[in-house]
């Protein structure tokens, strides 16, 4: 009789666990849409790539454009700025990257990056700071003329999106 009861309990246990597991899967499946609706919707994703005409800028100028809702810096760098960025030894950098890695070959005057400080997302001010690049007023991060972090709490260089040059003057971002 004792063994009977045990086998009975085991069978029931299995049914309980199986039912519970199915219930949990069902509940998770029902909850997922409620969470996923928080993610970017189709209209936000539809803006995922843009084209920008660089011929509107002259040397030493920069603009802030909008890409996926984010501000983006497009800077036409002067030869001095490029030389300054190239002269920096990698050992001086918190997030080591050469100037060449920050631009596309043959288009090294164009620096394209997301304008949010990698610390907590403020938009740094151009042509300022201790390194002649950008300075973030929020908590004092300094970036150089290649947008690399040099001083302050930000952990990384200004982030660069995927982009390619469709011609010498048209760049596709995203």
């Amino acid at each position, binding site marked *: 009789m004792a063994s009977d009861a045990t086998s009975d309990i085991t069978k029931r246990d299995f049914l309980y666990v199986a039912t519970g597991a199915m219930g949990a899967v069902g509940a998770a499946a029902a909850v997922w849409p409620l969470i996923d609706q928080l*993610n970017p919707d189709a209209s936000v994703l539809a803006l995922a790539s843009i084209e920008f005409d660089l011929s509107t800028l002259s040397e030493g100028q920069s603009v802030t454009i909008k890409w*996926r809702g984010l*501000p983006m810096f497009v800077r036409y760098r002067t030869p001095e700025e490029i030389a300054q960025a190239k002269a920096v030894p990698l050992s001086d950098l918190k997030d080591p990257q050469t100037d060449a890695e920050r631009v596309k070959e043959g288009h090294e005057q164009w620096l394209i990056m997301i304008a*949010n400080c990698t610390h907590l*997302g*403020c938009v*740094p001010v151009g042509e300022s700071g201790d390194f002649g690049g950008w300075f973030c007023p929020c*908590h004092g991060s300094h970036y150089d003329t290649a947008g690399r972090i040099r001083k*302050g709490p*930000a952990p990384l260089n200004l982030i660069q999106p995927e982009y390619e040059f469709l011609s010498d003057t048209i760049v596709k971002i995203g």
Partner: protein
Amino acid sequence: MSGQSGYNPTNPVEKWLDERLPILRFSKEHLMDFPTPKNINYWWTFGAILMFMLVIQIITGIVLAMHYTSDASLAFDSVEHIRRNVNYGRIIQGTHAVGASMFFFAVYMHIFRGLYYGSYKAPREIIWILGVLIFVLMMATSFMGYVLPWGQMSFWAATVITEIFAAVPVVGEPILVLLRGGFAVDNATLTRFFSLHYLLPFIILAVVILHIWALHVPGNNNPTGVEVKTSADTVPFHPYITMKDLFAVVVFLIPFAWFVFFAPDILGHPDNYIQANSQITPPHIVPEWYFLPFYAILRAIDFDMLFISSKLGGVIFFGGSIVILFFLPWLDGSKVRSGSYRPLFKPFYWLFVLNFLMLTYLGAQAAEGIFLLLSKVGTAYYFAYFLLVLPIVSRIETPNPLPASISESVLGNKGE
């Protein structure tokens, strides 16, 4: 303690109701006859003030929501519309905005009262934990409320605070996008914040009910920290405490009304009267005053610790400064509740208060030079108070003798 009931309905309608839904009995026991220590002082009135403030925020908030538009292109103008066109809108909006500050002022008083009189100790740990939970919910609510007017400070507060989540390794970035509903703070962020800003105060209300339920099991602590022994130690809640609380609310309303009528914007930031612009950050962003101490802690960590980046480190300390409060009942081992009888505890407590005020001041200053250095010192003491001072002091201290009962302390003081 809540067992003895003075409710004996004689009227047949009341009797009929009492057998079906004993709501009058419950009210009589908990809102009128509830035995309350007779020595509680004015620091004990902030609980009632907080209840009052929650009701004020809910009523004014519901009215504002009738005129407010949670669309990124219209939100800023709709708040101006409330202030300029809606009948009495200037006062209703001002009451809600100033009310948030008054609410936080009261909650800080309430928390520091608890810290001094040891109200977090057994058997009141759950009351304290629910209180910390309410504090966290209040911070979330007011943060999201502050985003609603969609000014420059709203926008950049939303950006910086959501960005904090991106510091979490691996899942940080997807969580950030999930919270914002986009790659940047935008319309989707605003609409969900409005929805949650409407919801959270009601969740707070529910937790407040649990908080008071938990309070009504052991009853109130008191300035001596000695438990109630006989009914000679207590007075009924009504009319003694109800009237005292009401008086405190009236006094509290004086500065509140002054702000609303004479300086509704003085606690805010002028940049929030510039519409949100995702391309330009204001040169000096500061949170609302009631977040400043925690903001100072966030910014104090500007150095890497082993494999933890300064960004993640700041977030850990910021979160830790609040999470640590949940553990306080087990960090302070002293059996004596009230700080008044703890000679060694007292100076450290007041240093903690001063340190908290200093962090508030520092949170509003630029994070550089001496300010940054002091923020680090302040952060260190904040954590040391909980992790070193309280555990050690409670082991080595010899407390002063406690009065035998609440009655004795009250009458004894008179007699001396």
